Structures are given as structure tokens and as C-alpha cells.
């Protein structure tokens, strides 16, 4: 009897602790997700019900009218179509992510696996430039590219080359055993073919995590568009969001619907690549 009680008591305590864990986690998670629920529910409510205190938190009836208005009726004023802003943002993000993966991985390969005099110096330069936050070059860049204001390419090109991405690729390529390249060279492959046909396919994890982090940063980009873009025809989505929410009088239902549409692409990417997303953030940060 004595033995059964001693084994059973800890087990029961364990089960109690598990229930306690779930309770704490659920309460915390609810409080944490509340703003997101508020956004979602608000976007489905008539605008005059959004700012309606606690009682209005749960809407009486839901409709997608706000979404229809944001997607269609926006062209009634001078701001242009929603899809246009979405397209600009997607285009800029696409150029920055794909161009960045290509250019930065190649540079990292050149610096980590090919031997040439001066590569240490070049890599040190990259590490030094990694210290420079974008914020501290925003003003001179703004001054330098003042003539190119309100163009799409000025929103993308400065962000393609990225010192931190090079660093992430460099760290990964260093861990690849040299025997793989030796085998490729014995088969007559030059550095370019070795890189594109052998190294790139075996480096999917680092490509995924760099792509995800770049996309995440680029999708929310705000400081540079604030400085460079005033013309609605090339305005990216987050900037239009801030313009849209500043209108008087504010139409809250539509503003929140706009917000949902702004975050939806990232949420879709996030839910599909959730594991990589989290791993990408964790690995790149721990190594940084």
C-alpha cells in the first residue's frame, strides 16, 4: 500500500500541475490575443459600433461591408485602389527578398569558400557595415536620392544587399564539409556550378530563414517610405495604412478591415511556414 501511494501522489500532482499550466497559459494567451480579436471583430462591425466600449466588443451582426469598401470604393477619392498599394508592397518585397537571396548568398559563398587575397578584409568590411543601423543612414540617403523620390525602385534597391544576410549565409556555408566541393571539382565543376548546383540545394534551411526574416522586415517597412514616397501611385501598404487611419473623420470599421488585409499576407506565410519562421528567428538571433 505504501508503495502505491508514493507513486500515485506525484502522478496526481503532475496532472494538477499540467492543468495549472494550461490555465495560466490560456489566461495569458487570451489577454495577449485580445488586441488581435479586437482587430478582427472590429473589421466585421459597422463603423459606429467599433468604438463602443466593452458592450460593443462582440458585434450583433457581422458583415464584410468594410472589406468591400476598402477593396472597391477607395477609388472614389484620390488615394487610388487598395490593390495598387498591395501590388507595390508585394513587388518591393519580392525584389528585396529574391534579389537579396541571390546577391547575398553568392557573396557569402565567395567570401567563405573561395580563397583569395583580401577576402578577410572584405568580410571585415561587411561586418563593420552590419553595425550601421538603417536609421543612421536614412537622412543622407534621403538627401542623396531626393531626385528619385516617388519611384518603386528607390524603395527596393537600397535593401537588396544586406550585411546581416551575408553574415547568416557565411556562418552556414562555413559548416559545410570541404569534401563536397572537392568531389564537385574532381567532376570538373567550376565555382559557379559548384555553388548553384550543389551548395544552394543543400542550404535550404538558411535560405528559408533569411527569406522569411527579410520578408518580415520589408513588409512592415515604414521609415524609408515615409521619407521617399508622397505620391499615392507608388505608395506601399503600411504607409497607406498610416495615411488611411489619419483621415478625418476616421471610419474605424474600414480602417480595421484595411489592417486585416495588411497583415493577411504575412499571416498566411506565417501559418504555412510556422516551424521555419520560428526556427529562422531563433537560429539567426542566437548566432548573431
Amino acid at each position, binding site marked *: 500500500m505504501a508503495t502505491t501511494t508514493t507513486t500515485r501522489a506525484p502522478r496526481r500532482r503532475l496532472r494538477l500541475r*499540467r492543468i495549472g*499550466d*494550461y490555465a495560466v497559459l490560456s489566461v495569458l494567451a487570451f489577454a*495577449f490575443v485580445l488586441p488581435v480579436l*479586437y*482587430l478582427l471583430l472590429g473589421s466585421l462591425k459597422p463603423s459606429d459600433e467599433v*468604438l463602443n*466600449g466593452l458592450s460593443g*466588443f462582440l458585434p450583433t451582426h457581422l458583415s464584410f461591408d468594410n472589406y468591400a469598401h476598402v477593396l472597391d470604393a477607395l477609388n472614389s477619392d484620390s488615394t487610388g485602389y487598395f490593390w495598387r498599394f498591395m501590388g507595390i508592397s508585394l513587388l518591393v518585397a519580392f525584389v528585396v527578398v529574391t534579389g537579396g537571396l541571390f*546577391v*547575398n548568398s*553568392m*557573396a557569402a559563398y*565567395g567570401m567563405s569558400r*573561395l*580563397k*583569395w*587575397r583580401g577576402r578577410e578584409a*572584405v568580410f571585415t*568590411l561587411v561586418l563593420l*557595415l552590419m*553595425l*550601421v543601423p538603417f*536609421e*543612421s*543612414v*536614412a*537622412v*543622407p540617403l534621403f*538627401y*542623396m536620392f531626393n531626385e528619385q523620390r516617388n519611384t518603386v525602385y528607390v524603395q527596393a534597391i537600397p535593401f537588396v*544587399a544586406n550585411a546581416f544576410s551575408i553574415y547568416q549565409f557565411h*556562418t552556414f556555408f*562555413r*559548416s559545410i*564539409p*570541404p569534401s563536397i566541393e*572537392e568531389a564537385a*571539382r574532381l567532376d570538373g565543376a*567550376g*565555382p559557379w556550378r559548384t555553388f548553384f548546383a550543389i551548395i544552394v540545394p543543400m542550404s535550404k534551411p538558411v535560405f528559408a530563414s533569411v527569406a522569411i526574416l527579410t520578408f*518580415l522586415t520589408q*513588409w*512592415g517597412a*515604414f*521609415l524609408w517610405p515615409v521619407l521617399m514616397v508622397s505620391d499615392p501611385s507608388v505608395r506601399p501598404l*503600411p*504607409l497607406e*495604412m*498610416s495615411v488611411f*487611419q*489619419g483621415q478625418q473623420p476616421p471610419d474605424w470599421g474600414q480602417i*480595421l478591415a484595411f489592417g486585416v488585409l*495588411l497583415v493577411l499576407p504575412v499571416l498566411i506565410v*506565417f501559418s504555412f511556414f510556422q516551424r521555419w*519562421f*520560428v526556427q529562422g528567428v531563433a537560429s539567426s*538571433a*542566437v*548566432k548573431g
Partner: protein
Amino acid sequence: MEPVDPAPAAPPDREQSPPMTAVKTARPTRSGPRSGPGNRPRNRDRLHGLLMSAPAVAGLVAFVGIPFGYAVVLSFYNVRLGSPMAPSFFGLEQYRRLFTDPDLSGPFLRALLNNLTFAVVVVPLQTGLALALAILLNRKLKAIGLFRSLFFMPVVFPMTLVAVIWRLILARSDQGLLNSALHAVSFGNWGAFDWLGDSATAMASVIVLSVWQGVGFQMVILLAGLQQIPGELYEAAELDRATPWQRFRHVTLPGIRGTLVFVAMLTSVLSFRVFDQVYVLIHGGGLDEDATRTVMYQAVTTAFDQNNIGQASAITVVFFLIVVALTLIQRRVVRPDNED
């Protein structure tokens, strides 16, 4: 084909070390050029290495290196955008004004102070909260993945959207979510309060929404650190009848010390770069400008609204020096810990 071998003298396992330590094993590969002088593959490598590195390095120099040098140069001049007058050399005048001219130094020093306040509150608050969440989520429970993604979700929200959501929650009317919730729990004693517009609560509001958005990021990093602690250490502690607190103090904390320091320093650098939420909420959100302006906000409004490029450049140079100091401290503190 031997010449291609990067380091014949180095033990083979050096190259296969995990990525974590790869940066520190740079030396063995460096000895490469000593072996087999004057081979064709080496020359080929030189050309292709340069070619492969060129586009990215050119981009970095053009869009980071040159602008940065330009910021330093501009800060020594009196440059105004759209002014018919040619820029004149100013020496250190911009910096002197920044710190001593009453008209300019007032807002600037206030911005510096706001940045400091933000960092001093956010760094321990966000790191502590992230650590608590990471420990809670570092269990083998069903649906733990769901909870992890719930806490991580705000990280993918653009700051411009976060600012709008919280603008509504903190709305000054009695119909704002927070005000009406307080109204309900205080039995009607709480009325309207302007959280964003009141100088006493404006910064606190910005802090709350920033922590909400950012804490998931730190949580994930700490979670990765927690999972590297060997389970046997906890089993041994349990055998020694260590209390949960003792296990936390003597197993968890030492196990993630490096990660924790890294997260704290990363948060402090990021907290100095705060801009988006402040800008959005001041422009059209009713946020108290004086209580929440940051150094970056000051630089952008000086360059953009006042067209004073020289002054704005001086602000960004000061900003850069602060961030670099923080980054260098970070590297100094984190490095020795990773060595073992």
C-alpha cells in the same frame, strides 16, 4: 587537386564543427594560401570570389558605407533642402547647437531622455516577460505549438497596424476599450482618460504596445536557449530534491546566461531604434509629442519637416554612436560566454 584543400594541416573535424562555432574556427582555413603556390585553381578562385562578392559589396558600399560617410560630412555643414543658398561649412556648430542651443537642445535632449526611459523600462520588462513565457512554453504539453504561435503572432504585425489597434484600445473617449473596461470594474467611478494624449501616460502606452509586439521575438530566442540545456541537469537537480526555485536559479539561469545577456542587449539596441509607432501615433493618433519623441523621430522631422539636413545628419551621427556603443558592449559581453 590538393591545392584546393583549404587546410591540409588542420584536423578534419575542424571544418565540420557546428555553425555556432564556425566563426571562431576562421583561423585554420586562413592558412590555406601557404600550400601549393601559384596554381591555376587559386587564381580562378580569386577572380570568381571577387566576382561573386562584388554585387552585394557594391550595394552595401553604395547604400550603407557612402551614405554613412556622407552623414558625417553633412553634419559639418549647414545644408538645407530646397534652399537657394549654397551649403556652408559649419564645423562642429551643428553638434554644439544640438547640446547647448536652447531652441534645439531642448527637444533633442528630451528625445534622448525619452529613448533612455523607453530602453530602461522595456529592456528588463520585455526580457523578463519573454523569459517567463519561454519557461512556461518549454514543456511537453499538448497544443504547446499553438500557444507558441499565439505569443509569436504579434511579431509579424507591421508596427503601423499595431499602432492603430492600440490607438483604439487606448482611445480617450469613455467608449475606448480600456476606459470602458476600467469603468466596469470600478463600478462606474472611472470615466474617460486620454492615455495617449496625457503626458504622464503617453510613454507608458507606447511601451505597452511595443512590448506586446516584440516580446514573442525574444521569447523564441530564449526558448531555443532553454532547449539546449541538457535534461539530465534537471533530473540530477530533482534527485537532489531541489525546489523549483532552486532549479531555476542553479540550472536554468546559468544554462541560458549567454542567451539572456544577448537578448537583453539586442532589446536595448532595438529599443533605441524605436520610430514607427511613435511617428504614426503622433501624426494622427493624438499621442503627446513631447513625452514620446525619440532621437530618430527628431532626426526625421528635422530633415523632413524643417528641411534641415545638416542638423538631422548631426542627430543621426550621435544616434549611430549610441547604437554602436551598445552593439560593441553586446559583442564584448556575449563572446566570452560562447567560447566554451
